[in-house]
């Protein structure tokens, strides 16, 4: 996997992506989290790769509108990698959309954990520590040092990592393509992706049923019973209900408002 020399176009795409990757929290929401930023970040790459092919572009944009969540700096790395994969997809057909999805899904959880502690819990605390010392004496330099140490250095890391993701990604994919094992890579990536989605579902999806069934003289906490069958069963059921609705062509809008309606209704009748 030799280091690739980047063309001028690639360089300018990466630079634009780097700038855009700062919008991590633009219109952040609980459904897609950082998806908007990811779409915005990928736009230069998608435009450069797919040019006029409007159908493929639509697909690509849809792909990068999916749920995404990780630390701001890690996002740049994954975006660089996604650029490499999209390029491979177009040029050689070696990668397909599902592989890209799976790899993104697999990388979110672990990078979030690592980068959160590296930057948010470590670098930030150190930078704040230094800044606080100065500010407590009324010295505005404390603020400036904080911004330099924390904000600017995160930016620098974003820059380095978006390039790293692209370069590393390309050569990895080239290697796989040469050996003609793309389907296997897709399948393996799906396995890893599914494991991670399963893990994240277990950690994050939560159906907060708060329903005590009182019949006669006994009362049953329904959620306890359900969790005894399989912990978090309701979340799993919810997820697969949604999956089957999506496969039946339901739009996310409908799902979201459905959930909202059920939640508020449920709260009204007292089961949440």
């Amino acid at each position, binding site marked *: 996997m030799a280091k690739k020399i980047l063309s001028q176009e690639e360089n300018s795409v990466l630079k634009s992506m780097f700038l855009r990757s*700062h919008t*991590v*929290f*633009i*219109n952040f*929401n*609980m*459904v897609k989290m950082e*998806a*908007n930023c990811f779409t*915005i970040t990928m*736009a230069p790459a998608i435009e450069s790769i797919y040019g006029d092919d409007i159908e493929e572009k639509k697909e690509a*944009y*849809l792909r990068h*509108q*999916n*749920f995404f*969540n990780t630390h701001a700096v890690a996002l740049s790395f994954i975006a660089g990698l996604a650029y490499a994969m999209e390029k491979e997809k177009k040029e050689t057909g070696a990668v397909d959309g*599902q592989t890209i999805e799976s790899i993104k899904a697999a990388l979110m*959880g*672990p990078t*979030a954990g690592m980068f959160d502690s590296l930057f948010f*819990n470590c670098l930030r605390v150190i930078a*704040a520590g230094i800044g606080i010392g*100065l500010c407590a004496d009324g010295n*505005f330099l404390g603020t400036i040092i*904080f*911004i330099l140490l924390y904000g600017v250095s995160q930016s620098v890391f974003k820059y380095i990592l978006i390039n790293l993701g692209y370069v590393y990604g390309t050569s990895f994919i080239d290697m796989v393509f040469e050996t003609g*094992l793309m389907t*296997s*890579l897709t*399948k*393996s*990536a799906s*396995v*890893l992706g*599914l*494991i*991670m*989605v*399963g893990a*994240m*579902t*277990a950690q*994050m*999806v*939560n*159906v907060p049923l708060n329903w005590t069934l009182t019949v006669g003289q006994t009362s049953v906490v329904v959620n306890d019973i359900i969790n005894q069958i399989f*912990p978090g069963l309701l979340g799993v059921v919810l997820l697969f209900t949604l*999956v089957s*609705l999506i496969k039946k062509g339901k739009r*996310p*809008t409908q799902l*979201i*408002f459905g*959930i*909202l309606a059920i939640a508020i209704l*449920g*709260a009204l009748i007292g089961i*949440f």
Partner: protein
Amino acid sequence: MVTIALKAAFVYYVVYWLDTFILSWQCLTRPIVIAPLAGLVMGDFHTGIVMGAALESIFMGISAIGGAIPADATTSSVIAVAYTILTGASIEEGLAIAMPIGTAMSSFGGLLTPLWASLAPFWEKLAVEANPKKFLIVNILVSFFTMPFVNAIVLFFAVAYGVEGLNSLLASLPVWVMTGLGAASGMMLAVGFAILTSMIWSGDVAIFFFVGYVLVKYAGLGTVPIAIIGAAIAISLFMSDKKLSDLKTSLTNTQVNVNDDEEDFF
């Protein structure tokens, strides 16, 4: 009072909004940055700086990882500075109100969570239009009116009419509305995962979804060890396929050779 409130809302709004676009996340919105700026705008830079140091210490340990924020450091910093400058209270008194306000603001922010979530389909539709310029612009425009905007308004009223106003506003909503909204947010996450799942799902590997699931729920592992175990599985599957494909190649070549030989033979 109203002037200060306006200024407070303004500085909060501008800084929070900027934070979305430059440097990196949660830098400008940290107390140590926003408090001095708020002081500057409201006419007492020194108080702003000193309170920034203290507020940063208070909120440093309150982490905002994984999407949940227990207390809103940014709004409460601005309010605390405004309150101190406005009432001539001591810095200590100003700090004292920061945490309760932060908690109230963050639970108010939580109220709106489903609202932002309900925009998700809109964004998706917009993205699929494959018009990146439009997507970016609409994002920027909408970002004018989301979290920082709403918070700025609340912040304005909080400074202008006091903290009681804020509390009574929250209290006036029926309990079940807040409960429902809270319940919705945990469930809405499932939509994103469902889309993801439906894209990478396939019958023969479906079981691995549950492997990840039980490793969290029963074995109590986090995503890092699960990713490592999952990578080992994925690599093993890949390597086994590679061996198969190598074998295939070698056998096919042999066959071709066999045929070649035969052709030579004739």
